[in-house]
């Protein structure tokens, strides 16, 4: 979940950077990266930001015995996969050229298609495919090292908090 204060902080960062609401894609991605890499829970899960830009984010998480949900099979708990999907979805919104600034999850649905194999890294890829004045829509998928069969899929709605509520962007 993402917070509101980020708007001001990002605005300040952008001002430092000589940028504005229409800062270049590279700046948006750089700032989004700084925020994502500073999230304590994402760090606790060992998440790594692999790609970010233009409304698409790829984040991965190493296998860790502490995250196991089924002791018999060593499969990672669905909750840890949800955390990866949520983080990745938020990152996709933050780096969308129109969304900008802060975002918070409104809702997310995760479908667990198969158990992730024990010992393998899990990678999520989220796309922010539509943005309205106040809502960003996201789709995401996750894989273990077999990239042909997703382990989970997600759809979510996120808030969009624009820098200036009465601003020019419709």
């Amino acid at each position, binding site marked *: 979940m993402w917070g509101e204060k980020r708007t001001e902080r990002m605005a300040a960062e952008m001002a430092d950077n000589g940028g504005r609401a229409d800062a270049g894609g590279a700046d948006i991605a750089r700032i989004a990266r700084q925020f994502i890499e500073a999230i304590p829970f994402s760090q606790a899960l060992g998440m790594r930001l692999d790609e970010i830009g233009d409304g698409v984010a790829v984040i991965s998480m190493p296998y860790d015995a502490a995250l*196991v949900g089924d002791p018999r099979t060593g499969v990672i708990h669905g909750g840890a996969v949800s955390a990866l999907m949520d983080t990745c979805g938020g990152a996709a919104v933050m780096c969308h050229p129109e969304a900008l600034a802060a975002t918070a999850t409104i809702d997310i649905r995760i479908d667990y298609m198969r158990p992730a194999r024990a010992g393998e890294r899990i990678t999520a890829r989220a796309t922010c495919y539509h943005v309205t004045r106040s809502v960003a829509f996201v789709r995401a998928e996750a894989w273990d090292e077999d990239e042909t069969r997703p382990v989970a899929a997600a759809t979510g709605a996120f808030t969009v908090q624009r820098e200036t509520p009465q601003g020019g962007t419709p």
Partner: protein
Amino acid sequence: MTRRPPEPVHLIRHRRDRALSALVEGVPYIGFMGIGFDRRGDELTAVLTYDDKLIGNPLLPAIHGGVTASFLEVSAIMELSFQMLWDEIESGRLDVEALRPETLPRLPKTIDFTVDYLRSGLPRDAYARARVNRSGRRYASVHVEAWQDNRHRLFAQATGHFLMPLRDGTAE
């Protein structure tokens, strides 16, 4: 007319607590998250003890949406599992002393899980209770509510569907 005397209360309590702790301790992720369970009869309340590592937004600060999702999912699975085993715990058919992570009955598997974020999670303890709305032989539907300071001010809720394990010992 003869009746069997009621079982001593400490035996009943021990069997229920032992079964619950075996279920909880068998799942490493529950320990990683710092989730515990309060039990009153067959009613479970999941308790998420606040820790700085659970933060998702250090500026607010607020707990991570993934923490909330995990907490709700853990609560739902535990409620469903405890309910699934309740009759065996009560009758004594389940040998609670022999329960180890390796010998634990198979747990329900999540099919899908939808989380509704109602307000931001504050940096303090959180509580959750789950309700099994439908539990068939194969599928179950569970609703979970989570709150922090005020029971009637939910900060998140979720609905999940679960695949129930086959209980005749054959693998799912």
